[in-house]
């Protein structure tokens, strides 16, 4: 086997040497044969004749020897590729257009696949990732990917369940001491984290269980930093071990640096600093990742976990119930181990769940664009094949077989697509970075390792071969059928063949129909995006959110509302600020406060109904957040501690709790089972507005209760003022960044140690609709690209037809046809073909659009207006592309065409 391959490689690369050797061998044979005959008394001439006769045709023998080397096919391919390269170099315009089209389309497809690969397919860069599982709790309605710390403690205390197990959370640390915030991405991890994942330290050491104690282990509070953070903040300094980093005003000693490619246990996020979880205080929940023993499967691990679950839950129950869990639910919800080789999902709406469907949908659209590009390139290749008809038929006459000619034409297509794909691969690297940058933001960064791997290369290779076959097969088959006498018969004169026209029209139909699908998709996704962006319903661009923490000023809980107000007043004095209001929770931030709410005298809503969202806000909130008060009043400065408790509810709340009656004057209480707040009197009815949405904008406006933040009091059940609070600033002039700086200075004047974390309301909205922005921009781009390609395709075909029918048109003009009639003649034909394409594309879109229904918002997947306008746009573009060459045709000088006849 090995010698065989060595021989073939030699045959391929030492071809010249082997050729001379072969020639010499044959020559020696003939000479010896002649000598032998002469020795037997035959005349020299006759001897040579006999020798040649005995051997047979020398060239034929050589050819058979070459075949015997087993590389004939490869050799032929190389020959064909060389020939193709020469042809492509000879017409750079044609090759350039084809290669650029392919590169652009293959590049964008590969870019999306690169993201899909990094996001969904690639295993974590850790030791044996396929032995990792995430522990989930299967709740009645859905699985949740995290556990409470008490259950985690119990799992950790049972070392026989897995080879090892670790718990972790994601957090964000502010490393600024005061003034404007400087946030870094953090991980709180249990001592076993790095060991369980199998990630060794690049410098220093990783954590041990000894580090994971309240107040720190033997070395005190310690931190492991990521490779990227080490490079960015410490310039990659070798002496970083032992230096300290201040996180939320606690000082940590850096003991280790993680290896370059390690980003944590979730794909899509990355960390700067990891600290032991016990040092930061107890988390209320955490993700649990386990490494299976080599003999375990996720199923057997789940079985083991379920067997141990009763003891785990019983042991954890007292603390869990004390923390608010419902006992019988807590005991019954089963645990399960899910494979986590490609990373673990986190949060209530994991990144993967948000992006998976949109990404696959975009990949599909990109492939449609590639198909259109194929149709375009096929058109080009066909046109060239016609130009080369003469050459091909001469080759045929000289003895080339039909399959040989087909191979040659196919080799040319393959060369085009391979060059296009290689260029596309380079573009894909840039495109994918840009795409990730589009959905990422400073406040919710998305990190993906977008390096190439065999999956991406394989995908691109498959696409490039696939496209070559798609656009090269018809021209190749056509070349195979060229008749040797064709060159003689046609005498070099060009003739329009009916078949060729048929193929051209089929290609245009394909292009127009695919294009329509893409334009419809673009219309649907762009409208979804704009619909969601406007749902919020207030001026996001001119609103800045300052995130603050009362603990920075070290005031007792009872004094917090007063601090809120002092900070608000300080911010309000900053030049350029028109309004400043305090609030507990920022709309669309995913931060939220929910509770069960009851209106006295009315039956409580069914348990299955979604809970009511609460927010505590200051005076002026309703104006800043575009929420008109329909009845009663909003909050005033007088609604502060000590005055009667008041509430404002929105329309949805009123509908749900009091039906058609006015809610004004009713009283409500809120809380969890057992602990309810004192009654609050409803003083106002607010309009349903987008600012009442805290999670996804597509989820609709929930039932909402607004409370006065000034009345918050630690004495009142469920109504203690939180340490973390926000000030929303509406500003007229100046940039958000300048305003954030000025606000930080103003806040520090009254509270010198306070840190101010500013984020514009627009970026909250941006983060919330990141997937919609991605799909809108990509589908818009693909739609535009497909329009352009379709236009070029139609133009090319009509222009070609004009060229073919030049003399016919000349004669028509000479016989008195008006230019307008010529244009009409050509356009009617184009219109008919485009019309067929539109009908087919419309039907396909109509049928397939329901598959993207889940990605849409505010309109039906079969939105008639979108379909109609897409068809109109495409028809206009098609006719314009046909009209340009038709106008040229009408200007043909009849005399000059007659002269060439």
């Amino acid at each position, binding site marked *: 086997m090995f010698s065989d391959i060595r021989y073939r490689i030699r045959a391929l690369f030492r071809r010249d040497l082997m050729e001379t050797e072969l020639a010499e061998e044959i020559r020696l044979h003939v000479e010896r044969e002649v000598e032998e005959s002469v020795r037997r008394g035959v005349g020299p001439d006759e001897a040579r004749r006999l020798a040649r006769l005995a051997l047979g045709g020398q060239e034929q023998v050589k050819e058979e020897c070459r075949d*015997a080397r087993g590389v004939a096919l490869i050799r032929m391919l190389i020959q064909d590729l060389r020939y193709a390269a020469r042809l492509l170099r000879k017409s750079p315009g044609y090759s350039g257009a084809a290669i650029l089209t392919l590169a652009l389309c293959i590049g964008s497809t590969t870019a999306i696949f690169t993201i899909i690969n990094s996001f969904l397919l690639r295993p974590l860069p850790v030791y044996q990732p396929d032995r990792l599982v995430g522990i989930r709790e299967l709740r009645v309605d859905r699985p949740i990917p995290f556990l409470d710390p008490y259950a985690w403690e119990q799992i950790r205390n049972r070392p026989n369940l897995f080879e090892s197990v670790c718990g972790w959370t994601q957090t964000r640390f502010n490393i600024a001491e005061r003034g404007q915030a400087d946030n870094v991405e953090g991980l709180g991890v249990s001592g076993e984290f790095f060991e369980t994942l199998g990630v060794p330290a690049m410098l220093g050491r990783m954590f041990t269980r000894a580090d994971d104690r309240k107040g720190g282990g033997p070395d005190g509070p310690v931190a492991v930093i990521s490779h990227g953070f080490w490079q960015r903040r410490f310039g990659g300094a070798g002496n970083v071990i032992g230096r300290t980093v201040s996180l939320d005003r606690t000082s940590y000693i850096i003991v280790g640096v993680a290896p370059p490619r390690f980003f944590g246990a979730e794909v899509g996020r990355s960390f700067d600093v990891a600290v032991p979880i016990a040092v930061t205080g107890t988390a209320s929940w955490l993700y649990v990742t386990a490494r299976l023993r080599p003999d375990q499967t996720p199923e057997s691990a789940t079985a083991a976990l379920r067997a141990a679950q009763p003891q785990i839950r019983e042991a954890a129950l007292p603390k869990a119930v004390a923390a608010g869990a419902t006992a019988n639910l807590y005991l019954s919800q089963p645990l399960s181990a899910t494979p986590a080789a490609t990373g673990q999902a986190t949060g209530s709406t994991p990144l993967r769940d948000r992006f998976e469907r949109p990404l696959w949908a975009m990949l599909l659209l990109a492939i449609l664009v590639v198909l259109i590009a194929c149709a375009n390139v096929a058109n080009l290749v066909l046109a060239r094949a016609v130009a080369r008809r003469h050459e091909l038929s001469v080759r045929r006459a000289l003895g080339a077989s039909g399959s040989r000619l087909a191979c040659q034409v196919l080799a040319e297509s393959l060369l085009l697509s391979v060059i296009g794909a290689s260029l596309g691969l380079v573009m894909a690297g840039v495109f994918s970075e840009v795409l990730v940058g589009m959905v990422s933001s400073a406040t919710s960064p998305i990190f993906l390792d977008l390096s190439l791997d065999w999956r991406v290369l394989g995908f691109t290779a498959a696409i490039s071969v696939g496209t070559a076959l798609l656009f090269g097969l018809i021209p190749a088959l056509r070349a195979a059928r060229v008749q040797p006498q064709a060159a003689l018969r046609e005498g070099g004169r060009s003739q329009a063949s009916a078949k060729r026209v048929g193929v051209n029209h089929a290609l245009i139909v394909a292009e127009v129909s695919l294009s329509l699908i893409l334009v419809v998709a673009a219309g649907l996704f762009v409208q979804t995006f704009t619909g969601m962006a406007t749902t919020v319903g207030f001026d996001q661009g001119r609103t800045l959110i300052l995130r603050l923490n009362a603990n920075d000023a070290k005031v007792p809980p009872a004094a917090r509302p007063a601090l809120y107000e002092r900070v608000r007043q300080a911010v309000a004095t900053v030049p350029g600020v028109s309004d400043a209001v305090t609030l507990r929770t920022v709309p669309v931030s995913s931060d939220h406060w929910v509770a069960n709410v009851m209106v006295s005298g009315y039956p409580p809503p069914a348990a299955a109904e979604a809970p009511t969202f609460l927010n505590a806000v200051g005076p002026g909130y309703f104006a800043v957040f575009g929420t008109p008060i329909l009845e009663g009043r909003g909050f005033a400065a007088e609604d502060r501690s000590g005055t009667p408790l008041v509430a404002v509810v929105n329309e949805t709340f009123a509908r749900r709790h009091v039906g058609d009656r006015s809610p004004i004057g009713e009283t409500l209480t809120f809380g969890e089972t057992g602990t309810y707040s004192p009654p609050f009197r409803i003083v106002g009815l607010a309009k349903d507005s987008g600012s009442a949405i805290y999670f996804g904008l597509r989820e609709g406006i929930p039932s909402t209760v607004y409370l006065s933040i000034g009345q918050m009091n630690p004495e009142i059940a469920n109504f203690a003022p939180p340490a973390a609070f926000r000030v929303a600033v509406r500003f007229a002039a100046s940039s958000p960044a300048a305003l954030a700086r000025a606000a930080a200075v103003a806040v520090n004047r009254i509270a010198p140690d306070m840190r101010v974390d500013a984020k514009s309301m627009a970026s909250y909205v941006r983060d919330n609709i990141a997937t919609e922005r991605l799909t809108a921009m990509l589908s818009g781009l693909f739609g535009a690209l497909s329009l352009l390609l379709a236009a070029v395709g139609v133009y090319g075909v009509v222009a070609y037809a004009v060229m073919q029918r030049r003399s016919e048109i000349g004669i028509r003009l000479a016989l008195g046809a008006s230019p307008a009639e010529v244009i009409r003649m050509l356009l009617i034909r184009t219109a008919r073909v485009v019309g067929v394409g539109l009908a087919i594309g419309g039907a396909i879109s109509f049928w397939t659009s329901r598959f993207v229904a889940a990605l849409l918002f505010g309109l039906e997947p079969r939105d008639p207006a979108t379909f109609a306008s897409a068809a109109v746009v495409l028809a206009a573009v098609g006719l314009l592309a046909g009209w340009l060459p038709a106008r040229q045709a009408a200007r043909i000088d009849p005399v000059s065409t007659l002269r060439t006849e």
Partner: protein
Amino acid sequence: MRLDLPQGTLDLLILRTLALEPQHGWALSNRIRQLSSEAVLIQQGTLYPALHRLERRGMIRSRWGPSDNNRRARYYELTKKGFRQLEHEVANWQQLATVVAQVLNTV
């Protein structure tokens, strides 16, 4: 009378002849002719492709050396694999010949 070679037997004859001593192409064709008492007709043209094929399959290897009248000639010789293959094919052939003869005699 001259016999046409059944399919595949040329390789066997080449291997058997080369087993005696390394040969170059022309000498090899002569040798086969002599050994078969001139009864086998080898198309000389088929010899070289067969040699190249056998070399690719690692049955024989070639090297350049001086020929009997001091010209450069390409000598072919059997490899270990070639000897094994020869043994195997000879056994096969003899078995086949016996069986064929047996069938022909009984019917």
